[in-house]
């Protein structure tokens, strides 16, 4: 644990001085501030932030993660020539990335909200859920990017798979789901659709936010189905559980591959 915390410390030192991280934070601040000052309606702001959480945050996380692993290959090889456990090094780099991107996300969202704090007095719980969802999406997509970049030595291929992965979960997946629902519309599909959406981390975040916001019926078929079946409390619990599973499995797969990989 000591070595792990030391690696995380230096990873964070490096990340917090990075221009890219500063640019990401600044973008989030400008986006959130613009949204609040232009809309002026806290409910609409929360919904727009949700869209940020389910599109931009996963994209930035998967791109940063993939580029980082490819650019740091020589550094990783060098570190592995030191007396250090492979798993610890992987976890150190992963945690450093997760913490720095999550911190950028929280800062970028919170600062403008604090500036307009009185607008959001009644929406504190919603803001909290948006933040937690954003952190989950950051962790999940960094985990995926690390797994993809470690599995594929070819940068171009790895980068392509990462972008496709993001596109799949944000756009293609819902298209496939709609197609299935339309094709089998004569059958009771509530439980099946529930099962299908639980394999998409972006839908899970969307569902969690909309469930808590009591506008699920406006936000698509799947959210309405989940609310119908579980009610808000259970629905939220299950989505958090599934998001946790999503946060863990790419990490574990990445760790397993890294441990076996010839560097």
């Amino acid at each position: 644990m000591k070595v792990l915390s030391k690696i995380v410390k230096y990873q964070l030192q490096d990340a917090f001085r990075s221009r890219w991280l500063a640019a990401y934070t600044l973008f989030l601040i400008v986006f959130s501030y613009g949204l609040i000052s232009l809309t002026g309606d806290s409910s609409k702001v929360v919904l727009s932030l949700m869209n940020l959480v389910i599109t931009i945050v996963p994209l930035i996380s998967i791109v940063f993660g993939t580029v980082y692993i490819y650019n740091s290959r020589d550094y990783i090889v060098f570190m592995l020539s030191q007396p250090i456990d492979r798993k610890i090094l992987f976890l150190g780099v992963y945690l450093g990335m997760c913490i720095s991107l999550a911190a950028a996300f929280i800062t970028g969202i919170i600062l403008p909200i604090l500036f307009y704090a009185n607008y959001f007095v009644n929406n504190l719980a919603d803001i909290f859920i948006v933040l937690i969802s954003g952190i989950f999406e950051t962790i999940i997509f960094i985990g995926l990017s690390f797994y993809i970049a470690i599995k594929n030595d070819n940068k171009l291929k790895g980068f392509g798979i990462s972008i496709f992965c993001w596109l799949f979960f944000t756009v293609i997946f819902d298209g496939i789901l709609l197609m299935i629902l339309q094709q089998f519309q004569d059958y009771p599909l509530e439980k099946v659709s529930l099962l299908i959406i639980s394999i998409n981390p972006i839908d899970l975040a969307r569902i969690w936010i909309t469930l808590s916001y009591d506008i699920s019926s406006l936000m698509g078929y799947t959210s309405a189905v989940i609310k119908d079946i579980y009610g808000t409390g259970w629905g939220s619990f299950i989505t958090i559980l599934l998001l946790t599973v999503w946060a863990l499995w790419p990490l574990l797969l990445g760790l397993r591959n890294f441990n076996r990989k010839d560097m």
Partner: protein
Amino acid sequence: MTAITAENLIKDFGDFRAIDKISLSIAGGEITAIVGPNGSGKTTFIKSILGLVKPTSGNIIVNGVKLNGTFKYREQIGYMPQQASFPENITVKETIDLLCDIRNKTGDLSEELINKFNLQKEYNKKIKTLSGGTKQKLNAVIAFIFDPEILILDEPTAGLDPYASGILKDKILSVRKGGKTILLTSHILSELEDMAENVIFLLEGSIRYNGKVNDLIERTSSSNLERAIASLISGVAV
């Protein structure tokens, strides 16, 4: 005393056999050069010793420790890769601190290489602002700073100016006198001839020669190591 032993070492990358049944012993307290054309298996062999590449079969023993996923043995190794890369937004001093922290040791910051390379004046500069040569100097300092028993130097003088290269060669020879084991690769064979007692010549993943440098020159009736290696490549049996 043997520092590194390889027993029937095989490494396959898919269908390609990078190392083909290598068995050898590397003497402790001496300088051993590993030479061979590109793709002959030098880097794979070095990476196997460092645990970066997992052998398909066979064993490697470093200072009596059989490698099977262990990492503690690397405390005794100083490695200088051909091209090291460090997190670009941390400073030279922080990079050295990082390695001291990981090894739980205080590096010897009065180390002669730091002074001779005049690296103190770069301490507070971020890695991304350093020239390639300065990064390579830092790379060399890190390999030596913990006074390891075994030094593995992969093309150590590549990227260094002749002055810095001379300083590094002197340092290699002085630690050799201190009884350290040094394993090095270089494409500049005259440089190896000046420093190494032993040479291992690899071709297509197999050992074609493993012995004293002088013996090789004599047995191939060559005037120097470069010509001796050329003879080996052209098929002269030794």
